[in-house]
Each structure stands twice: as C-alpha cells, then as structure tokens.
C-alpha cells in the first residue's frame, strides 16, 4: 500500500460524497413531489407519459398494488427482452449478423437485466447485436435501476408517513426515477466518456492487420452510452466481454475514476434522500456511515492483500514490488483496482476492471463477502437502501430492547409482523446461495464448468450464486456459466434474490406506513449515533455474514492458508 494510493482512493470517495449530498437533496425533492429546477422542462414530458399510459399520478397504491405493479412491469420487461434476444437475427442493427440466443441463455440474460443483476453468461461483442444492446439491454439498464429507486422511495415513504394506507404510485416513481434522475445524469456521463475516448458508434467491428500481419477484429458500437447507464444504474453488464477492464469501456485512469464515481453516486445519494424525506437527516448519514466504514474496510483488505503479492510467485523469483498484478490493468494501478473491486461488489454493480478470479485468495474473499452481506455497502441503486433498512430494523430489534422499550425505528414500532417479513427476506440469500452451491458441487454436470479444482473451484461456484442472488452480476471468471444448468439455476437465483426479497420488504413498508409515529424522547433508542453505526455494522456482519462463514472457510480462507503453505490450485 502506498500513501498516494490511499490519496487516490480517498479523493475519489470524497468526490462521490460531494456530489451525493446535493443529488440526495434533489432526489428527495423529486420524489416528494416538489418543484425542481428541471421541472419546467421535464414536467410536461412527464405528464405526457402519464396521459399516454392512462396513469393517474395522483392515485396512490398500497403495498400490495405497488408490488403487483412492479411485478407486472418486470414480467412484461422479461418477456419482451426474452423475445428480442431470441429473435435478434430478424431484428435490425445487426451488422455482425449474430444468431438469436439459445433458450436458456436468453432466459438467463433476460432475468439478469430485468433484476438489475447484469450477470453475463455471454461475451457481448460476440453475441449481441447493436439492437439487442440498445433496445434490449440498455433499456433495462435504465428501467431495472429505476425500479430499484422506486422501491427504495416507497420504503422511505413508509417511514415518512403516519397512519397511511399507501406508499405512492409505482408508475410515477418509475417515471420520475428515469426521467429526473437517471436519464439526465446518464447523458452527462456518456458525453464525458466520449470525451475520454470511449467509442460511440453504430458501426460494427473493424478489421485490422497487426504488425505481424495477422487479422484482428476490433469490436465497436454504442459503447459510451451503454457504459454510462451500466455504471450509474449499478447494472454492470458490459458492452464488451472484458467489461471495464477493456480499453474501449474504460480507456484511462481518469475514465476509471469516472466509472467508480458514477456507479457510487446514486446509491450514496439515496440514504441522504432517505434522511431528508423522513425528516431525520442525521439518520441518513448514520446509514451512510455504516456503509462507508465496511466498504473502506473492504477496500483496505483488497488493497493490502493485492499489494503484498503472491508468496508463491515471489519464491519463483518474481519481484514483489508491484504486488499481485495478474488479471489487473497497469493503467489503473493497485489502489484504484482495489477500490473498483470493493465498490463494484459492495454495490451490486458487477462491472469489473480486473479479473476477480486472479485476485489473491483474501483479495477475492472480500468481493465475495461484500456480495453475501446483502449488497448494502452501499448496495445497488435502491436495493442497497432498502436492504440497509432491513438490517437497521434487525439491529433495532435485537439491541433496541436493551433500553427497556419495545423496539422502534424512526418512531415506528417493530413488531411481530415486521419481524416475520424481515426474516423471510433475509432467509432468501443463504437459501439460494448455499442451497444451489451445495447442489452444484455435487453435480458432475455443474462441476464440468470449473476451470480450477480445490477451494478455488468452490469459490468460483459460490461466487456465481452469490453474484446472482445478490443481483451483483460480476463473475469470478474461471467458470463456464453458459450451460443449461448454470443459465437456469442462476436465472432462478437472480429472480429470487430480487423479487422474493423485495416483496416482503414492501409488505414491511406497508405495515410501517400504517403505524403511528412514537414521539422521540430521552427514552428512545437513538439510531443516529456512532454507537448505533457500530451496532449496525455488527449486525450486518453477524446476521448477514455468519451463515456464510463455513462456506467461506472452505473457499477463499482455506485457499489463503494453503497459499501461505505453498500450495496452489
């Protein structure tokens, strides 16, 4: 580790915070129905959409209607994307003349993009037409992210309201998230990427003759626009197979900072918007602090593990000064790679600028754990916030009794119904991740996809299911996931990870919104103090992480101790 590395990391994070504060305030206004400086321009457009769709923006929905609208929207999105991918050979903008996708791959990919996972079992430049990329994938990059924001806003309103039967209107929240938040920022970020040298064209690939006289196909396309929303919406599905490690997606150190910045900014702004909307700004910062502390701890471990290098290679005479550079891009360096690794997994983004499978065991342990902790650090756009609120509810419940009152969060009592639903939600991740992993390691058909044996192979499978269920989408690499088994089970994992989690959370929101708010007094359990932040971190680690510990011990942890003992896989 070097001082200059930490300076880079801290500067980037400071930049994010600096932008997130006004963005949070802006979002609080947008979703509070307030007037913003863009309302004169976007307002008529917004109302036009409602008229077109026959939506009455004033009519609010209860939690069930909100959930059903969200589910219906996702099902339609899934079906249309599935159709586009299957029929891409007959659709326009297919300069390379790619065939339609296989049924299982199309199923997997459609779910992947609808759930904001962007798990890619395919190589973008060798599978997808421009039409599929733009009309299919990029559209869902917007919509799945907007859905996440809408859900978070609905949950936020539950705490802001008292004695309310409704949480807002899904169609309005979805439209506003897209129109007021994602689209304007995406346009700016896309232009910035173009300025930094990312291609933006409808041309297909170019053929080049290399110095050796060999022919090389260089893939091109509308990369910058896709890149912007891929990062901004914590989608992570790259236009190109190598994702943000590819020089066309992420050409320079500056574009790397922009990539990190844009994937963090909305998720960082959401807790701030939450604090403003519920009228407790300190609460928003308390949630953010817990996220930041765990995230920075993750960055530190990756950075330390990677810079200390691989003792096995050092023993072979490799200079350890650079640390472990396998699978990394020299133009980003160790510090900004470590930051990218932790952020993309703490975030449920899943874009990668280095190959996670090539990280040292401890360096690979961190992204895996960050995903398994529930994607709340700070998590995907929207999903991170509502996931964090579930943890806050659990923390308040476990420790809140210790002040001698029945637990309450932001004045709302946490009772049996909320507890039942919260447990239902947190059950999903271990069930899906550990369940499918455990079955996969016993199935020859699944094991055939592994490139590595031993603990590293186990990590590959564990990582795949964690990434899917956590709606992260990054791959550990080394696992050939484009098989019917993995396409199907990972697809199911993604759907469960998103919908089986969020529906109980919306039900919690419904019951919270209906409750009265207990006034704050000296006897109230304080949830915006450093003490609570510490408690929340403890609860995230113990209730969110402990169940994965045995599996992690058999994967990256044992690999680490074996590496120290001189064994490799």
């Amino acid at each position, binding site marked *: 580790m070097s001082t200059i590395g930490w300076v880079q990391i801290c500067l980037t994070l400071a930049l994010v915070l600096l932008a997130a504060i006004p963005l949070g305030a802006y979002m609080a206004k947008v979703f509070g129905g307030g007037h913003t400086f863009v309302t004169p321009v976007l307002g008529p457009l917004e109302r036009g959409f409602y008229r077109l769709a026959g939506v009455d923006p004033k009519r609010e929905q209860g939690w069930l209607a909100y959930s059903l609208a969200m589910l219906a929207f996702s099902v339609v999105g899934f079906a249309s994307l599935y159709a586009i991918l299957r029929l891409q050979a007959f659709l326009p903008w297919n300069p390379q003349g790619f065939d339609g996708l296989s049924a299982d791959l199309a199923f997997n990919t459609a779910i992947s993009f609808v759930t904001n996972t962007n798990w890619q079992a395919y190589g973008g430049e060798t599978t997808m037409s421009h039409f599929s990329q733009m009309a299919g994938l990029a559209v869902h990059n917007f919509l799945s992210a907007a859905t996440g924001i809408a859900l978070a806003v609905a949950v936020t309103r539950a705490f802001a309201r008292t004695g309310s039967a409704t949480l807002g209107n899904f169609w309005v929240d979805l439209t506003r998230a897209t129109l007021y938040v994602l689209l304007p920022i995406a346009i700016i970020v896309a232009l910035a990427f173009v300025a930094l040298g990312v291609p933006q064209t409808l041309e297909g690939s170019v053929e080049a003759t290399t110095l050796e006289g060999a022919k090389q196909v260089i893939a091109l396309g509308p990369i910058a626009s896709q890149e912007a929303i891929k990062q901004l919406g914590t989608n992570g599905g790259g236009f190109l197979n190598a994702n943000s490690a590819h020089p066309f997606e992420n050409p320079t150190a500056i574009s790397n900072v922009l990539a990190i910045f844009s994937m963090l900014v909305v998720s960082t702004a959401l807790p701030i918007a939450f604090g403003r909307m519920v009228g407790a700004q300190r609460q928003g910062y308390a949630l953010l602090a817990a996220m930041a502390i765990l995230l920075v701890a993750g960055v530190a471990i990756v950075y330390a593990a990677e810079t200390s290098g691989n003792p096995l290679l050092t023993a072979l005479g490799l200079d350890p000064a650079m640390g472990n550079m396998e699978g990394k891009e020299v133009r980003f360096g160790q510090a900004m790679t470590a930051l990218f690794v932790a952020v993309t997994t703490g975030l449920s983004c899943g874009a990668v600028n280095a190959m996670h499978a090539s990280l040292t065991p401890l360096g690979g342990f961190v992204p895996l754990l960050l995903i398994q902790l529930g994607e709340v650090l700070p998590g995907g756009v929207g999903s991170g916030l509502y996931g964090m609120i579930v943890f806050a509810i659990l923390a308040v419940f476990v420790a809140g009794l210790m002040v001698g009152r029945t637990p309450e969060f932001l004045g709302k009592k946490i009772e049996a119904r909320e507890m039942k639903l919260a447990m239902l939600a947190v059950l999903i991740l271990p069930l899906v991740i550990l369940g499918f992993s455990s079955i996969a*390691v016993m199935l020859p058909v699944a094991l055939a996809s592994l490139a590595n044996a031993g603990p590293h192979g186990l990590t590959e499978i564990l990582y795949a299911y964690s990434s899917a269920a956590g709606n992260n989408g990054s791959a550990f690499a080394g696992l050939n996931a484009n098989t019917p088994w993995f396409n199907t089970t990972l697809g199911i994992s993604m759907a469960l990870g998103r919908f089986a989690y969020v529906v109980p959370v919306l039900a919690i929101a419904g019951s919270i919104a209906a409750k009265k708010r207990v006034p704050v007094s000296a006897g109230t359990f304080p949830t915006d103090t450093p003490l609570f932040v510490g408690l929340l971190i403890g609860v995230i680690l113990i209730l969110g992480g402990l169940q994965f510990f045995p599996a992690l011990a058999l994967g990256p942890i044992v690999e680490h101790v074996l590496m120290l003992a001189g064994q490799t896989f």
Partner: protein
Amino acid sequence: MSKKQIAPTLFDSAILGRASLDAVRKLDPRSLMRNPVIFTTEVVAALVTTIWLRDVLAGQAGSSFSGQIAAWLWFTVLFATFAEAVAEGRGKAQAASLRRTRSDAHAKRLLDPHNLGDLFEGVNALDLNVGDIVLVEAGDLIPSDGEIVEGVASVNEAAITGESAPVIREAGGDRSAVTGGTTVLSDWIKVRVTAAPGSTFIDRMIALVEGAERQKTPNELALSILLSGMTLIFLIAVVTLWGLAGYSGTVLSVVVLVALLVTLIPTTIGGLLSAIGIAGMDRLIRFNVIATSGRSVEAAGDVDTLLLDKTGTITFGNRMATEFLPVPGVEQKVLAQAALLASLSDETPEGRSIVALAKSDHGLIEPDFGAKQPVVIPFAAQTRISGIDIDARSIRKGAVDSILRFTNTPIERAPAEFRQAVDRVARTGGTPLAVAENGKLLGVIHLKDVIKPNIKERFAALRSMGIKTVMVTGDNPVTAAAIASEAGVDDFIAEATPEDKLAYIRREQTGGRLIAMCGDGTNDAPALAQADVGVAMQSGTQAAREAGNMVDLDSNPTKLIEIVEIGKQLLMTRGSLTTFSIANDVAKYFAILPALFVATYPQLGALNVMRLASPQSAILSAVIFNALIIIALIPLALRGVAYRRVGANALLRRNLLVYGLGGLVLPFIGIKAIDLVVAALHLA
C-alpha cells in the same frame, strides 16, 4: 407494612426440587413445539441419541464421543425447560398459598334479594350466581367478589393484600367493593355477588401466578420469530455445509453437523425467553401488583406519559401548616401561640399540623389550663371558623373571608401586610388561614400541600428516561401550577374531571404516546380502560378494577413509577440476553470450524485461535459451553438485568458493552476452560 406472604427466595430448595421434575415433564415435544429453538435442539438430540445407540449396538469405535454429545444436547434442552420450570415454580408456590385462603365456605344467601330482607339460606359459596345477594356478618368470610348494597363493615383483606390492618367497606361511593376470601371483622354487610364461580378475583390471581393463562406477549412473539428465523438460516448453513464439505473431500458426520447447528442457533435466549417473561410477571406480583396480562407489563416499559394523581402520589394527602405570617405589631411567637391554642382541640390533619409547627419551629409547649375550663368552638361548615375561648381571650381561626366577616373588618381596612400575606400564600398554591384574637387580626397561617420528599428527584429521573409526568388535581389552575412547578412535573390538569382525564389520554395517544395512570373510583373507569397501562387500586370500586389491566393490592399510587421500571427491566433482560446469545456465535465458529476440516486441510488449524486440544474436544467443549451458559444465566433471567434511571443512550452503551462485547469474549474463555477440563479428564 406487614406482609403475610413472604416471597420465596430465588432458589428455594422446594421449588428447585419440583422444578427438576417439571423440567423433565416439559420435554414432551407437543408442549416444546411452542419454542422452536429448543424444539429443534430436542429433535437433533434424539437424532444423535439414535446414532449413538446404533453405534453402541454395532460395537463401533468412537461411540463415546457421540454419546457425550447426545448427553449434552439433552442437558441443553433440560436446562431450558428447567429455567421455565423454576420461573413457574415461584408462581406456583404463591398460588398454593392463595388457594388455601380461597373460600369454599358457606354463604348466607338472602331469600328475597329485592327487598333485602333478613331471611337467608345457607348455600355453598361455589353455588352463588351473579346477582345473588348474601349477608356477611362479623367473623364470616366474604364468599365471592361483590358490591355492598347495604351496611358498613371493617374488613380484613390480608388474604389478598398481605396488609393486616382492617379497612372500612360501605355501601355507595368508592369503597363499596369487596373481594371474595377476605374476612368481615365487625358489623355486617349485604353484598351483591358480581363474579361467577371460578372467576373471582382470587381465582384469576391463582390462574395468573400459576401461568396457566400465559400466552406469548407481542414482543415475545416477535422475538420468537427472529429466533426461529435464525434457526432456519443456520439450519440451511449446516445442511448445505455437508455438500460443500463433500466437494472438499471431507465427509462430515451427522453428529458434528448437529453440534455445529446447536451451538449456532440461539439456544441461550431461546431457552430462557419464557422464563424471563414469567419472572417479569412474578416480580410484579411480589411487588403486590397483579397484571391481568403479560401484554400490559410490556406496555409498561413503553409508557412515555404518567398520569399521577396529586393527592397521595405527589403530595401527602393533607395540607400542612408551614409558616406563621403575623401582621405588624404582632410578634410571630404571639401568633404561633394563638394558633396553637385555637388548634388544640382541632383533630383535623390541618389542625394537628398547626400544633406541630408551633411546637417545633417556635419551641412552644401545650399550655396547662389547670382549673380554667376553656370553651372549644368546633369547626362548623356554615361559619368555617373554629377556635377557643379561655378566660377573656377569644381566639378564632378560619378561612380568611370568614374571619374578616367575624371581626367585622372589610378587606380594604385590613392591614396591607395582611392582604399581601394572603395574596402570597394563595399565589404559591397554598391556603391562607386567618387568626384573630378578641376581634383583632393577628396574622395568617400558611397551609400548603407538602410535596413528598425526593419526589422531584424521581420526576427528574423519569424525565431522563424520557417519561413525561402529568399531575392530575381538582385544584384550581393557580394552585395546580404552583404545586406542579414545585414538584417538577412536566404538565398538569387542573380542576380535572374524569372526562378531562379521558380526553387528555386520547389526545396523547393520538400523538403516538403510551399512557399509564392509576385510579380507584368508578368515574375513573373509562380513563383506566383507555390508558395503555391502567392500574386500579385494590381499595377501589369493582368497575375500576375491571377497567384497569393491573390491580395494585397495596392501593399505593406511587407504585406506577416502579411498575414502569419493572416493564423496562423485562424488555431489557430479553434484549441483553438476545444480544449475548447472538454474539456468542463468533467464538463457537472459531472452536468448531477448524475442528471440522482439519483432517482435509490441516492448515485451517490456524483458525484454532483458542488452541483447543483436539478436534473432538473442541466440538465437545463448544457444546458443553452452550449448555452450561443456559444454567449460568438462569439467575440473571429470573432477577432481571439491573435497571438504571438514565437515558436510553447511556443504557444502550452500558448494556452493549456488557452483553454485546461480553458475549463476544466470554465464550472464548469459557470454551478454552472447558476444553482444558475435557482434555484433562480424557473425555475426548
């Protein structure tokens, strides 16, 4: 106060003996199903036992290990049921003593209940129906709960309250309720029976202390859901581990997987949860307060507004003289002397307090009248004056306007100092009494409501706990404000009618607050029913007792504060032990995980930070620790976590340190210690 029933000590040997038997009886899976964590433990204990039996029968090596694990799993379950049995045992002992006092004696039922004639028939008390009227005479047990319709009697209620001094019960008013099982000491009363057989106050009390009607309270239910959810999560983790370990080349036996499961699921809090709830109710009962449901005990912890009656709670019941304010030209001692003389035969508390003040502050002694015969003028409602004529001295004291009229002094002609003194006393919430001798004004006696000592500090402590205190009084707003500020309450309701109280409670509840109050009159009943915690006085009317959700057997309204603290303590104990139980898991991982995989990956021994002797001793030690910690925490669960009157933040910091951090560290030490013993005894 003399208490007849002496609360059983924490570990009475008789209770422990019976609890041990009950603990075994509670192993019945049908009743254990109510507790998912311990039920799961029982199921896997049975599973491991079966495996052990199979191994023993097959003569397989290593059966001693599975046998020991099975034994400790059964101990885990037994310790949990034992905790519950001990908690219940204390209630049962109390119920038994109550049952002895329950009347199944004969009752004298009036033959003509409409005209309240004197003819009666002897019937068994259990045959009495609601609406029957019975005659109870001196020496009789009152056969059932009821309302006095005629007569007045002194009643010994020691059977219920433990208080042996008799109380007066009479028809009409707020003292008309009588309780079955109490004894009439003198006179006679006719009582209309208001409780059906089997549902009298004593019957309900027995059922409550025995825990027969025990249902999970809302918070207990929510906590059980959390614990069940965690059990499920760890079940998933352990079951899937079999597959993941299989991939890694380790075949995990069912016995070690079960050991891992049981140490991870929250058995500590799961085992103690119901004991904590029962003990909380029990603490109230020993405090002579009967809660009709566990729900109200929990609500007591949440209360954030206390409605307190001024009289008896904040002030002593009566006004007391606090100073003598003479007019110019009169020495204070002279005024004191005159007041003393005028009050000598005044037996009211106010009169006595004047005598006491004159003696203590002015060193006066009671004069010896010798042969002189003083003429005592007793207090009369019409004149509102009392006094004494002795020799030529004619001394009068009374309400200011009455004395002025008596002395023919229009108020404007009274000395300015006199008027100022009267004003000052009235403004500070006191009552001025004027004293005159032979038609001449001597001065003013300041009577005031005396605030109970330390009550201001109590209210300050309540405020730091986030509880608002509201004084309810019939006084006028000026007086009420003065007393309120002196006592340090946060708010007051002056000239309060029962409707005012009810409206105040409703208003506060709309704002999301939880209210506790106490009351005894029939007109308190609606407010008692509306309040989240309504404590009815045992001395109050039947209507009040039925409207409240707690009954205070000592009829002491100050207890409201302690009731809130007992509620808080109950919730705190639950939270602390839950935190402790969950924090324990970290150490158990470090004990068991390396032991599970050390055969395949010897390098994982690096995680064996406690340096436990062998894989088997590590697993066994963790399971033993897991069982013993339940028994070690039973006293804490029954006694409750110490409650301090400080703000939530300070409480949280302290408890998080003790039970959170303590829960992380203690098992490392405990498991290591047990491992040393296990290794020394060659158990594994």
